[in-house]
């Protein structure tokens, strides 16, 4: 009988999505890599005569987004024994995180100029006449740049709570690229579900936020304070949608080069069989994990200017975030190997987006087992 001392199997210690395994390894890196890109553009632009007014209104935006991931990270303690071609391991402290770290710096630029055509009667006896001219009555041009997630954090958390996504975490993390005003981790976390779920861990970080931010930014709130005198309202904000369901499944166990398959799960233990011989003094424990990911990330920006039920000009832009960041999710099932020295209860962490420092964690990617759409 071969005893297997308690061994930590993890993508990093402590567990971190940004140091985890890429959900879509074909995008270039085995680890969760950093992608960053920006865009700029116009939401609407109009110059119209409206009754007595001449309105010139422009709305534009610039967006810089950084992404670390999407990825998943796992951590579990494994111990047990191998005997007569069968390995039996007890899994404890298992944890899965799936999601990404991201930052969203949004600049919003507006220009509203309102001129009024004024007509007055000039009383000069027989020479009385009307006098008309254009006069500027309002000129508003706020320009803001905000960490969008920080700004709408409260409403996102409310959305996650209301939608039952209580496992989805959103928290500020260290900036992973300097151009961002802030970085956020958005991921789902599952603990101690591994054996109960037959060796599967499922994470579904999801949210969808259409939000008007004009009351949250003092400069924009001041715009609406000015416009209320005309029963006029200006609204703008992001439409952020995120969906990253992922299933991670234990597929094989390895003691050195000996593979144990046909895994079964019972009472907190996982068992596997091999047709070969148990190694007498194995040095390395490995787990083969399959993950099946999906990923959708959308970002839109809208702006709307309305005067009573008289006038409205609106625009929205849907920003193809994934193509901007060079991410083209290829769906399917991917296989990864995680290994550690038997008896080791630590793993070295790696640099985000690279394999540096990951000496004790070997990651091997196979081709997708199932071609996706």
């Amino acid at each position, binding site marked *: 009988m071969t005893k297997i001392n308690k061994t930590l199997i993890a993508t990093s210690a402590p567990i971190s999505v940004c140091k985890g395994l890429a959900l879509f390894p074909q995008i270039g890196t085995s680890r969760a890599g950093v992608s960053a890109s920006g865009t700029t553009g116009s939401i609407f632009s109009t110059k119209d005569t409206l009754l007595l007014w001449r309105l010139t209104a422009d709305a534009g935006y610039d967006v810089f987004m950084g992404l670390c991931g999407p990825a998943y990270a796992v951590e579990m303690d494994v111990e047990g024994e191998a005997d007569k071609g069968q390995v039996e391991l007890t899994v404890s402290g298992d944890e899965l995180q799936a999601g990404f770290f991201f930052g969203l710096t949004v600049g919003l630029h507006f220009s509203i100029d309102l001129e009024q055509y004024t007509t007055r009667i000039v009383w000069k006896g027989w020479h009385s006449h009307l006098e008309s001219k254009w006069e500027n009555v309002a000129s508003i041009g706020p320009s803001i740049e905000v960490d969008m997630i920080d700004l709408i954090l409260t409403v996102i958390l*409310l959305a996650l709570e*209301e939608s039952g996504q209580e496992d989805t975490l959103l928290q500020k993390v260290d900036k992973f690229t300097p151009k961002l005003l802030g970085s956020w981790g958005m991921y789902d976390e599952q603990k101690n579900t591994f054996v109960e779920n037959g060796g599967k861990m499922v994470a579904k970080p999801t949210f969808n936020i*259409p939000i008007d931010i004009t009351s949250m930014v003092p400069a924009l709130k001041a715009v609406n304070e000015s416009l209320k005198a005309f*029963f006029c309202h200006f609204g703008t904000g992001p439409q952020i*949608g995120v969906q990253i369901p992922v299933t991670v499944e234990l597929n094989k166990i390895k003691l050195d080069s000996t593979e144990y398959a046909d895994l079964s799960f019972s009472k907190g233990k996982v068992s596997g069989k091999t047709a070969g011989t148990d190694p007498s003094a194995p040095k390395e424990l490995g787990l083969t994990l399959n993950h099946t990911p999906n990923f959708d990330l959308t970002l839109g920006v809208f702006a709307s200017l309305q*005067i009573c039920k008289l006038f409205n000009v609106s*625009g*929205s832009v849907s920003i193809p975030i994934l193509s901007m960041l060079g991410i083209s999710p290829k769906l399917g099932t991917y296989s990864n190997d995680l290994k550690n020295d038997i008896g080791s209860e630590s793993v070295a962490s790696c640099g985000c987006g690279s394999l540096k420092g990951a000496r004790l964690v070997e990651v091997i990617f196979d081709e997708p087992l199932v071609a996706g759409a």
Partner: protein
Amino acid sequence: MATRRDFLKGLGGALGAVVLTSSCGSGGGSSSNNNTSLIPNGYRFFRVLTTGDPLPEGNTLFAMPGAAMINSRNELFVYGLDQADRSGFYELLLDFGGSRPAVLRARKVIREGDVLKDSKVVDQVTSGDVNDLGSFAAVVKTTDNLSGLYLERQKSGFEPVAGYLTGMPNGAGKFGSFFGDVDIHDNDNILFVAQYAPYGIVQGRQGLIYLPGGEVNEKGSIVTSTADLIPETGGFISGLGLVDMHDNGNYVLQAYGMSQAMITGQKVSAGAGRLDAEAASMLITGNVKDPFTRTLRSISSSIPVKKSTAARPGFTYGELRYGPRIGNSNKAAFVVHVNGSHMVMVYDGNPVISTGSLSPLGNPVSSVAAPVVGADGLLYYQAVTEQGMELVVYNGVDSKTILTNGDTVDGAVLRSLFFGFMTEQVDKAGRVVFTADFEDGNTSLVIGIPV
């Protein structure tokens, strides 16, 4: 040309401020044929509320920018600011039995700082509408930085109907925090624009939501939404603007959209990409009970349409900047900005007036406001001319001016009037309500009563 009018206008005070209607070419008086309504011979105009007047709860009216409404319960509603710069709607109940309308009751409907039934505090009312039941639907931005749709039935206070993350009709998703225009009609049926997060789709949308009876339940529906096809084109709706609903569920909708060519023509590149998506505006008509049948009535020339659509009587190319209106028999009235300064008003498929043409008083028109459709099918609109402005009534054949600057109302000379800012500015008796500036320096809520 208008000597009879000028003469009688000079006698206005003696006649009790009756202003006779005047038309270009056809003279005053009534006209009709078998298919048109009579235009009244004249109107009596009264100032029923003026800046500086006391408001309910001890405040003073400071300004009225132009939003005024009337229903068939003799109730007038006006958006105003008080001396503390707080904005809100006020209601006047009028008695028309005497020689001049008398205010029986004045009431604050909703104002900044009010506490709503859900304990939220009003920050700003961004859209509102009334119906003949006296119900008031309002989009309210509250001090918690969120917005919601609220409804007051029978003067009993504003109850929340829809708000951030509340459920949508038929469990279709959850509302976001941006609510656009709102319209309320008979039976408290509400049609409004709102952002929402649909279930099962990660992309947020903007929808035209119909709530029969003003309640979110299985009878409600999403009439149309962004990502729907623009009727009669290959493009997609990208945004929704102003809306008006009339009897039997007929509605008109100002929408924005992009053709496939516009979408695929967007420049996107990593790092230094630029993405422009200035949507084209359009008018869509339909019925809330038949969400799959929609008709395109006007659209920006930047989006190609079918030849049969372009050949339809009244179909107009241009930008739809103003809120469209709808009256009985599904007759749509709207103004198209052919370019930034040239406008054409269309009613029931026929052009009514355009910039550059002559007003009923014979003045070149430089601008028009959004029209208002009366219950009897008469169309009311304001034209700005090189001589000032005119309030005009149109019956499908004749256009007649019922008020112009320089006219006297309750002893004050009219300087400017603001009509067409809301959809409910004419009641079933043909009374018109609007705000106006006077040479005495005040702004008044004015009602015109046909005689």
